[in-house]
C-alpha cells in the first residue's frame, strides 16, 4: 500500500516509528498505552499529502481498496478520535500548510488545515491580529483538528468556538470529491455545521477561511472569591447575562481555588501529592482511597475563585467593563482579590491541570472530560458527576466557556493507574500487559460512571473535545433518534464507509 500511495505522488511510510507515532493521541487511554509500551492500534501506513488534490487522490484510492482513512492532525485529541481502530491509512494533515494569507482589511485569514495553532497565532500577532482561539493544545494542535472536533478555546466567552470563526472551508468527502463552501449567504440547510465537528467521519478538512480580529493591546484581569460555588456560578452567569463579554471567565471549585493560592488555607499534603505526582509511592497510596481524598477536599473551605479577564482597546484597558463586572459579582457576594490572584490562577492553570505525564509515570491516570449544560443545571450536574465517581477517582472541577445561557464543566479525574513507569520498564512484557489491562479497566469504570451521570442529568457529553472512540457509547443516549440522522449523513458524505470508521457510532 505504501508503494501505491507513493505512486500517487504522496509521501508515505510504514516505518515502525511512524506507525507508532500515528497510533495514538493524548487521551488517557493512549497515555496508558505509552506507559505500557503497547501499540494496540497501529495503522498500516502513514501518508503526508501536501495539497487538496493529493488528499482526494488518497481517499479515492482507499475507496477503491475499501481501506479506512483516518485523518490526523497534531495528535492532541483526548477522545481517541484520530486512532486508527480498524487500521488502514492515517492521513497526516500537517503538510497541508499552503501559504497563509491574511487580509487585515476584511478581517480574514486563509489557512491550511495542517497549520499549527501557535504558528498561526504568532503570524497573526505580527500583523496586529488574532483569531481569538486559544485552546490548551494551541502549541501543537492543527487548524484541521480544531474544525474536525469543533474545538473551543480559553477565550471562547468572547470569541466563541471555532465554528463561530469559520467563514468557509475546503474539504474532501468520502467519495474523494472536493467540497468548497461559500463565505456568503446560502440557501437551505447550512452545510458547514454538518461537517464541522464530524471528527473525520464525513470529510477531511484541507483549508479554511477564518474570521480574525484586531489584537487587543491590553487586558484587565481579576480574581474574585465567592463564599460558595453556587454564588460563583450566579456571579459568572449574571456577568454574561448583562451583555458583558469577558475574554476569560473561569470559575474554580474550592480545591482548584486553593491550588491557585486564592483560598484561605494552604493545600494539605496528601492533596499536593495528587497535583504534582512528585511522590509516586505516596500518590498511589493516596489513590487507593479516593473517597477519603474527596471527603478531605469537601471539608476544605467552600470558597470558589472566579477569574475574569476583559480585553481593552488602544484607548481603554477593559477596566470599564471590569468595574461593571465587579459590581455584578459583589451583588452575588463576590469579593475582589485583585490582579495578582487572577494572574496567579491563570499562570498555575496549565501546571496544576495538565501535568499529565508525571502523574502517569508515577502510576496514576488523569482523565479530563468536558460537559456542558444550561445555568439552571450546572451545579447539579457537577455534583452528580462528583457523587458518581467519588469512590473511584479524585475529582476536580472548573466551570468555563460561559455564555449567557450556560457553560462547560471541565472535570479532571485522577485515579490509580497501576505501577509506576520505572517499575514497568524493569518488569516483563507480560507484567506490563496485565498492568495495562487493570489500569484500563479502572479508567473505563470511572469514565463510564461520569458519563452516565452527565447523560442522566441532561448534560451534553462533550463541550469541545469531541466524542471519538472514547465517549461514543453514550452518544446514543445523547442524540436519541438523531443517530438516524447521523447515519444518513454518513451515507451521504462517505458512501464507501472508509472515513475514520469506528467513531461516532459510524
Amino acid at each position, binding site marked *: 500500500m505504501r508503494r501505491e500511495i507513493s505512486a500517487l505522488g504522496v509521501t508515505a511510510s510504514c516505518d515502525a516509528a511512524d506507525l507508532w507515532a500515528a497510533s495514538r493521541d493524548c487521551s488517557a487511554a493512549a497515555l496508558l498505552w505509552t506507559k505500557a509500551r503497547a501499540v494496540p492500534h497501529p495503522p498500516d501506513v502513514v501518508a503526508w499529502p501536501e495539497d487538496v488534490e493529493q488528499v482526494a487522490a488518497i481517499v479515492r484510492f482507499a475507496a477503491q481498496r475499501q481501506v479506512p482513512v483516518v485523518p490526523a492532525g497534531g495528535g492532541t485529541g483526548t477522545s481517541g478520535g484520530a486512532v486508527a481502530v480498524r487500521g488502514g491509512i492515517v492521513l497526516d494533515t500537517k503538510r497541508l500548510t499552503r501559504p497563509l494569507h491574511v487580509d487585515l482589511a476584511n478581517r480574514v485569514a486563509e489557512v491550511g488545515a495542517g497549520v499549527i495553532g501557535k504558528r498561526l497565532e504568532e503570524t497573526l500577532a505580527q500583523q496586529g491580529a488574532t483569531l481569538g482561539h486559544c485552546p490548551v493544545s494551541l502549541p501543537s494542535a492543527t487548524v484541521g483538528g480544531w474544525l474536525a472536533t469543533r474545538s473551543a478555546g480559553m477565550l471562547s466567552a*468572547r470569541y466563541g468556538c471555532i465554528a463561530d470563526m469559520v467563514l468557509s472551508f475546503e474539504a474532501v*468527502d468520502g467519495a474523494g470529491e472536493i467540497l468548497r463552501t461559500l463565505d456568503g449567504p446560502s*440557501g*437551505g440547510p447550512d452545510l458547514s455545521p*454538518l461537517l464541522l465537528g464530524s471528527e473525520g467521519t464525513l470529510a477531511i478538512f484541507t483549508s479554511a477561511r477564518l474570521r480574525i480580529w484586531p489584537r487587543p493591546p491590553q487586558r484587565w484581569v481579576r480574581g474574585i472569591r465567592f463564599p460558595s460555588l453556587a454564588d460563583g456560578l450566579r456571579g459568572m*452567569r449574571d456577568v454574561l*447575562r448583562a451583555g458583558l463579554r469577558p475574554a476569560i471567565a473561569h470559575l474554580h471549585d474550592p480545591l482548584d481555588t486553593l491550588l491557585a493560592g486564592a483560598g484561605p488555607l494552604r493545600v494539605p499534603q496528601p492533596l499536593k501529592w495528587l497535583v504534582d505526582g512528585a511522590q509516586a509511592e505516596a500518590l498511589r497510596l493516596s489513590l487507593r482511597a479516593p473517597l477519603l481524598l474527596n471527603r478531605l477536599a469537601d471539608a476544605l473551605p467552600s470558597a470558589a475563585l472566579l477569574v475574569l479577564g476583559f480585553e481593552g482597546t488602544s484607548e481603554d484597558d477593559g477596566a470599564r467593563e471590569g468595574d461593571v463586572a465587579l459590581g455584578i459579582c459583589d451583588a452575588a457576594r463576590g469579593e475582589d482579590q485583585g490582579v495578582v490572584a487572577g494572574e496567579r490562577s491563570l499562570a498555575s492553570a496549565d501546571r496544576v491541570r495538565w501535568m499529565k505525564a508525571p502523574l502517569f509515570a508515577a502510576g496514576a491516570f488523569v482523565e479530563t472530560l468536558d460537559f456542558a449544560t444550561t445555568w439552571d443545571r450546572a451545579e447539579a450536574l457537577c455534583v452528580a458527576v462528583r457523587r458518581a465517581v467519588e469512590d473511584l477517582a479524585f475529582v476536580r472541577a472548573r466551570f468555563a466557556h460561559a455564555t449567557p*445561557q450556560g457553560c462547560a464543566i471541565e472535570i479532571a479525574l485522577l485515579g490509580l493507574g497501576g505501577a509506576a513507569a520505572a517499575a514497568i520498564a524493569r518488569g516483563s512484557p507480560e507484567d506490563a500487559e496485565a498492568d495495562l489491562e487493570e489500569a484500563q479497566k479502572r479508567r473505563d469504570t470511572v469514565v463510564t460512571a461520569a458519563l452516565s451521570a452527565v447523560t442522566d442529568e441532561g*448534560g451534553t457529553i462533550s*463541550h469541545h473535545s469531541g466524542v471519538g472512540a472514547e465517549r461514543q457509547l453514550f452518544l446514543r443516549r445523547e442524540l436519541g433518534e438523531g443517530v438516524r440522522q447521523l447515519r444518513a449523513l454518513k451515507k451521504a458524505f462517505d458512501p464507501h464507509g472508509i472515513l475514520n470508521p469506528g467513531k461516532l457510532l459510524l
Partner: protein
Amino acid sequence: MTLRDDLSATGATLVEDGEGGLRVTPPSIASLGRAVAVVRAHKVLLRVRGSGDAPVNAPASGVLLDLGSLDRIASIDAASGIARVEAGCGIAALESAVRRAGCTLGPLLPSVRAGSVGAWLAGPTRGLRGVPGARRETAALTVAAVLADGRIAEGRAAPAKAVGPDLDHLALGGAGRLAIIAAASIRLFPATPALASAWSCPDLASAVSALALVCQNRLAPARARILAGADGAQLAMVWEGLESAGIDRDRAAHLLRASCSFLPDVPGNWVRDSADGHPVEVDARWPSLRAWSPHGDVHLFGLHAGGAFAMLALPEARPADESAALARAAGTRVIAPRRLRDAGPGWESAGAAAPWQRLLEALGVEA
C-alpha cells in the same frame, strides 16, 4: 386505507385545501409525528406552515401541515435566558410572553416578527441573530425535529457541544424538507432600554463603511439605519446590552470620530422608524450593502463582522420588485417578501450536489 383515513387516525384535524389537497392540523407534537409518517408513507407532497406565516395552500393532491395548534410556550427561564416553545407559536406572542419575564428575542426582521417560531427557524434566516461581539448565532439552543418516519430527534440543550455534526442544522433553514421543527429551546436576551447614537457621514457608501468598521471591531449594534441626508448620509445605531450598551456605544464613537460627525439632536427612536415604501429584506455582506447604498434607505438587523440582514427600500414608494432587482444586482440574497425570495446557492455551489441527493435518499424524503 386512504391517505385521509390514515391522517384521521393521527388525531389531526383535516380540511380540504387547494386543488385536491388536505390541510392537516395536528393538536400535539406526537400527532404531528404520526401525521408526517403517514404523509411520507403515502409519498405525497408536503408543505408546512405555522401560525401567522405567509399564506400557503396545500400542494395539489398533497398535504399542508398546519402547525397553528402547536403554539404552547412550555416554559420561560429568565435567569438562564431560555424559552421552551412549540413551533407554531407566533413570534409576536412569544415576544409578549418573554417581555413579561423581563426578556426579549431582540430586534428581528419584520417578516420574522410576523411569522411563527417554526417559520423563523426553518426559514431563510435559519433563526440567526446578531449577538454582542459582532457574531451571529442561531436563536435555537436546540430543536425537536420530526423525521420522515415520524420519529422525533432532539439534542441536549447546551450552550455549545462537540458531539459530532450539529444535527439541528438538518432542520434549520430547511423549510421542513429534511426534518420538520416541532419545538425549540430559544435563547433570550434581557430586555433593556436601548442606547442610540447618530452620525453624519460624507456619503451613503462611507456610512456603510463606518458601520462595517464598528462591527469589525466587535461593537456591532443591535440595529442600525442609514439614510440619505441633505449633504451626505446619516447613520444611526442602537445598542441593547444591559451593561454593555453604553460601553460599546462609546467605543464605537471613538472609532467613528475620524470619518463622521456626531449628531447630538437626532431622536433616539429614529432608527426604529418603519421603512418607507415597499422594502425588501435581504441577507447581505458589507460590499453588497455598499453597492446598494446609492439607491435608498437601509435598516439593518442581526449585524455581524461580515454583514447583516437588511431592509432595503427605494424612495417614492417604488415597487418591491424594483428594489429586489437592484438588491440582487448588488449581490444580496432576497429573503422577503416571500414571492420574491431567492433560493440562494445550495449545496451544489459547494460541490456537494451528490451528497445532497444521497442525503435525501438516506433520510427517506422526496428528491
